[in-house]
């Protein structure tokens, strides 16, 4: 009887030690619009799909990524063209996370990545053209921006869903600073 009590007591101490140094098993559920990455002692172990997951709270942690579409909108931007003219444009689009693992490491806040990529691609592509080229080939240039953005986003775990230029017009060259002396007042 005494040995039995010792055994129970040792088992109890063992459970306490596991709770303290390993953690306690707990469960969490990823919804259908969520993906996750399981970390154990700070290192990624595996990617997680929606469903119920067992986690050893204490040594394991789940980083959850929302895979719903991220809308992007940029308004009233100007870009200098090759021939000195200035184009004004606005864009809108959306993207979603395809690979949670890549998305987590893509940026401090992964939801900023689609806007950043579209902003860079649109400006760099438009800057390469002259005003007459833009007016004649607007559709082709928009496709070029979308294609460039799609490749960059895929490399970071995203999928481009939609993209369009909501506003687009070309204006005069940027004003040069006026160095001429001011006209004297006529009295």
């Amino acid at each position, binding site marked *: 009887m005494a040995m039995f009590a010792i055994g129970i007591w040792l088992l109890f101490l063992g459970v306490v030690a596991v709770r303290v140094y390993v953690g306690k098993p707990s469960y969490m559920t990823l919804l259908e619009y969520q993906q996750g990455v399981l970390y154990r002692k700070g290192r990624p172990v595996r990617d997680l799909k929606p469903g119920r997951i067992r986690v050893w709270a204490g040594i394991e942690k789940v980083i959850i990524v929302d895979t719903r579409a991220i809308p992007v909108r940029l308004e009233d931007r100007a870009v200098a063209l090759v021939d*000195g003219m200035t184009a004004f444009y606005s864009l809108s689009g959306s993207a979603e996370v395809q690979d949670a693992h890549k998305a987590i490491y893509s*940026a401090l*806040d992964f939801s900023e990545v689609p806007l950043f990529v579209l902003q860079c691609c649109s400006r760099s592509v438009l800057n390469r053209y002259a005003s007459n080229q833009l007016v004649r080939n607007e559709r082709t240039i928009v496709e070029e921006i979308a294609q460039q953005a799609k490749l960059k986003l895929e490399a970071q775990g995203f999928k481009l869903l939609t993209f369009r230029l909501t506003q687009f017009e070309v204006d005069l060259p940027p004003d040069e600073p006026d160095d001429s002396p001011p006209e004297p007042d006529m009295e």
Partner: protein
Amino acid sequence: MNADDIWAVVFLLGGAGLLFLRFYRRRTVRVFVTDYQRGVRFVNGAFRDVLGPGCYYSNHTREQITIVDIRPKPVVFERIFYEDAFHAPSVVSFAAELSVGDPYRAITQLKYPINDSIAIIRDQLQSVVSQSIANTEPETRDKSANEITAALNSELEKLGMQVANLEIIEMWSGSVRPETITGAN
């Protein structure tokens, strides 16, 4: 030693262990550092070390661990107007990724490492590009970007920050006449 003695020893040792854990755990917190983070540990206010990925017990009465995220922050510097080395009016836009290079320096030099660095970078960009001749040729953009990155990092290193993947996404200079550009009209 009979079974009762063994039982008594095991019971007392186990009880003492539980009491120790009870009082010890009240002062410790478990800190989880992922591989995209670093933990800067201070003991009694003095810097001790930078913790890598893992689980750590921290006695919060004498230790402080600050978690620093080392993932990059994408930033765009749009339409920086300047005069180049030939005093030609120019405009340039950059895209870059800003991240923490040295966690200890970043949190001890700047209250908000990312936001404070952006303002410093903007000033540095203005002065760096103003010292060179604006060149709109696409082939020279990579070379210019590398030079600008090196100049920025030499300043940011003192603050524990760094830029990477800097790209010139827009360049125009008033020294380039429209008639000489291929494709214009």
